């Protein structure tokens, strides 16, 4: 297949997923005899048959948060974002992992599938319901959603850790090199960020989990990497391509580079800053711009990085610092970095602010700032990404269990996956992960969050659990 055909298949595949979503959504409102639904079904049948005639067989599969068609991963597309999200949610709800179209299909086949799909939502065993109802539909097979194998998960976790620590170590090296006047290897920086982009695309939650651990000594380096990870994840939510995600990851990795010029006695001062010290701190965006422009010959990436370094403390309403004489339209990248930067800083113990906020508390404060300090649209995407209970939130469950949020759920933001650290009898345990979307036979959730607690108040070391 040449790249033109590849592009064509990718485009058709995106449209196919979108059309399935349109059909399923419409079927929630109308019955299958409705004209609008019938027309949508006809279109879907035509699309499927065209693709089947080209490819012989068409397998639509959900893996993690992404759809694959005949093994090609269908990338996030902004125009179809809501429909893609809907599909992911509905497939997961029914434990439906894949649909295989084996030959030319008819409208009636699709109508049978729609009925099975709708019926499954009322069933205790939704996938079995779909499978049973589809038994007699010759050209359509369905498969159950595959669970991640534990061993694989361990390997992946190892890789994610490696990526994260490589990135921090690299960042530390870059800063040291710049300080000592050595040349910085931008090629390596790109590799670091590309690894993070890959991990975000494949294992977003694990890498985001790494950003929740805040107990390292070298705050600045971890903060730079955390912001880079958060922005890449957010960029992905915004539908950015891999190339743009790399660019965004790069600019955010260097957003605080100006801080290296702040005298260490100021930066590491354990007590509150004086006005003069604040004045020095407030210069780091300008110093950052300069440091980046001195780093290498100008190119698009250098310029974008310099802009973000300069603007990341300029607020959405143009308050903040540095103060510009002319009205500046703050770049989208700067607005994204600003959100990620605030979130990571607020939830971290810094030398000049020893008490970090719990993730949910930080989010709540940031919500008040949306529209003034923060771009409300970017922040909206951010909250949709991290959920009501971001990773690292300490939660008490209605089952009298105490746990840490280890994975957010983008489809059900208030039902994350939680690592139980104290069981219902008050004994400390380690590592049992529960999914708050789990339901009992009465269709009631097995566990729900009763309250959140501040992990910092109890000096709870997230690294012990999340690493």
């Amino acid at each position, binding site marked *: *297949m*040449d*790249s033109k055909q590849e592009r064509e298949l990718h485009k058709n595949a995106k449209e196919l997923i979108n059309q399935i979503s349109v059909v399923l959504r419409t079927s929630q409102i109308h019955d299958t005899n409705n004209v609008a639904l019938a027309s949508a079904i006809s279109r879907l049948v035509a699309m499927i048959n065209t693709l089947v005639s080209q490819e012989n067989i068409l397998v639509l599969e959900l893996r993690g948060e992404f759809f694959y068609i005949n093994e090609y991963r269908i990338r996030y597309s902004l125009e179809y974002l*809501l429909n893609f999200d809907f599909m992911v949610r509905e497939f997961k709800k029914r434990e439906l992992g894949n649909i295989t179209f084996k030959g030319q299909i008819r409208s009636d086949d699709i109508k049978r599938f729609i009925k099975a799909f709708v019926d499954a939502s009322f069933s205790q065993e939704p996938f079995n319901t779909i499978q049973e109802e589809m038994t007699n539909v010759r050209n359509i097979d369905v498969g159950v959603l595959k669970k991640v194998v534990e061993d694989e998960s361990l390997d992946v976790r190892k890789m994610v*850790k490696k*990526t994260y*620590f*490589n990135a*921090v*170590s*690299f960042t*530390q*090296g870059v800063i*040291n090199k710049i300080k000592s006047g050595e040349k910085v290897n931008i*090629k*390596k920086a790109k*590799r*670091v960020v*590309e690894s993070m982009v*890959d991990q975000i695309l494949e294992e977003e939650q694990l890498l985001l989990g790494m950003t929740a651990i805040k107990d390292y*000594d070298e705050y600045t380096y971890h903060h730079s990497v955390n912001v880079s990870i958060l922005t890449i994840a957010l960029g992905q939510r*915004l539908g950015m391509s891999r190339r743009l995600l790399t660019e965004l990851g790069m600019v955010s990795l260097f957003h605080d580079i100006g801080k290296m010029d702040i005298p260490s006695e100021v930066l590491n001062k354990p007590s509150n800053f004086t006005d003069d010290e604040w004045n020095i701190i407030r210069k780091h965006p*300008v110093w950052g711009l*300069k440091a980046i*422009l001195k780093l290498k*010959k*100008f*190119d*698009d990436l250098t*310029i974008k990085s310099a*802009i973000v370094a300069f603007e990341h403390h300029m607020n959405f309403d143009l308050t903040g610092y*540095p103060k510009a004489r*002319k009205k500046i339209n703050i*770049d*989208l990248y700067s607005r994204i970095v600003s959100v990620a930067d605030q979130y990571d800083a607020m939830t971290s113990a810094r030398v000049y602010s020893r008490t970090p906020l719990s993730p949910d508390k930080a*989010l709540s404060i940031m*919500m008040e700032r949306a529209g003034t300090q923060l771009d409300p*649209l970017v922040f*909206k995407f951010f909250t*949709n990404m991290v959920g*009501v*209970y971001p990773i690292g939130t300490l939660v*008490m469950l209605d089952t009298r269990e*105490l746990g840490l949020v280890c994975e957010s759920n983008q489809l059900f933001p*208030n039902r994350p996956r939680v690592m139980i650290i*104290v069981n219902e009898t*008050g004994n*400390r345990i380690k590592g049992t992960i529960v999914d708050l979307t789990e339901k009992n036979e009465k269709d009631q959730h097995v566990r729900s*969050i009763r*309250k*959140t*607690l501040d*992990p910092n108040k*109890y*000096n*709870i*070391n997230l*690294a*012990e659990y999340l*690493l």
Partner: protein
Amino acid sequence: MEINEDFKAARDIVQAILKSKKIIRMYPANNPIYVKTLEDSYARFTDYFDYRQDLVFKIKQNEITWDSEPVYANPEKEDNLALFFFKDGLRELTFKRGLTSEEMEDFLKIISMDFEREVVDDDIVTLLWERDFQSIQYIADDAILADEDNYQDRAIQEAEENANSPDNILKAYQDAFDEQDVASDTSIVPLSDADLQQLMQLLDQESHGKTEKLVDLLFELPYLSETRTDYEELTTFFMNSAEFIMQRGDLAIMNSMLLRLSSLISEPHIDGEIKNYFRRVISYAGNGTIINLLGELLDSGQEIEDKVVEEYVKHLDKNAIPPFMNILGELESIHARKVVIDALIFLGPKDITSLAKGLNDPRWFVVRNIIYIFRKIADKRAVEFLLRTVRHADIRVRKEVIRALGELGGGGVFQTLRECLEDQDMQIRSASLRALGTVASEAAKRIIMDKIAEKAFKDVDFDEKKEYFEVLSKWKDEEIFTFLVGMLKRKSFLFSSAKMDEIRACSAYALGLVGNRDALPYLTKTKGDSCKLVREFSFTAIKRLEHG
């Protein structure tokens, strides 16, 4: 396919890769050798995939293996394919069935790039990653990215040492029952279509270049700068921006930047020393590197409005003259050269001496262009430089300089023009004669009259004689009238009567051009002259005088 055959096929593919790598560097894509080599390489892949799904190569420092068997080994540092992959961390390369010829070509192009050159900002892994092949996979060792070998272990150990005591966790557990319920007050607002629309607009804006934005930020820096070093750095940033802007061909942004710098220079409240930094930037905007880039841009065929270039040139100072002269001889398109000539016409008066250095250029056409520029500038100070070029080896240059001398005039030019009237080359004599006509002074007139009056003048070729009289007729004064009438009435001698008749005929012709009707009686008389040439020229002159 047997294992041995598989091994051989894998080894042949490595050889094909090596060969293609060389060919791609040597030939353009439309060259038959290039095309044939790639076809052969692709055939090796497709043969292999007839029987197998994947082709996996493991990469070591000096060796590439297939199925644990070495298919390539090279202990040298130069031209070592294994090392070439290995040094960027590439440890395994897999080609899958379904590999397209386009994918193979893209892969080969990537590995054929000159990674030693500074301009390539990506290593091989990044380029493979960006291309995102469907049928080529790789495993890269990212350990080379870490600055400190044991950073991960150290960081994890740190975290373990900080491990919390069970008491704290149990305290939290107890408190959870004591404290009031605190529900998170964060509510997630689902994304809407309007959000997506707004986002798409933002992303669209984001896709535009950011150079203008950077320039805007740089103009904030003067107000955030305090020390001399700050201004030195700012100056460098502006200079680098200027270079980048020209690389991109964003002349409008360049003009805006230079205009804003000029405005700052004219601000009365800004310190003179700071203004000097800005002046340095403006001067830099016309340096060799930037003007070379402009040259490339002009020659690229990209549509650029002449007005925008003119505006750019208006900002430049005299330092831009030498670089502009340098590219003048390099440019290929006529339009590009015209733009540069116009630029030099504008800049030249700022430093005539600098411009005059172009007269020493070894390329005749550059010298001729510079002379043309001097003509357009019309500054008499140029005469002293132009006079040195009159003896140039190329006649085209000589003609141009004589023309320029005529246009510029001044006392200094007569001696040279007079000498040129004696030149062996008819074109030079003609040019200097016309130049004297252009000068149109009494001295010039005298030179021509004297020349005609010379005894030897009768031996001059008829056309040249005619040209003399034609030029002389530009002076329409009494002296010329009398001189011409005198020449017309001149008697011819037996041995030179034909040559004298030519002079008389030319005088008749010139009287017609002068336009003084007082000449009619003389011409009416010579209309019946025994010499046919005199008769015809007299007749023509009468007609011109009578009918205009």
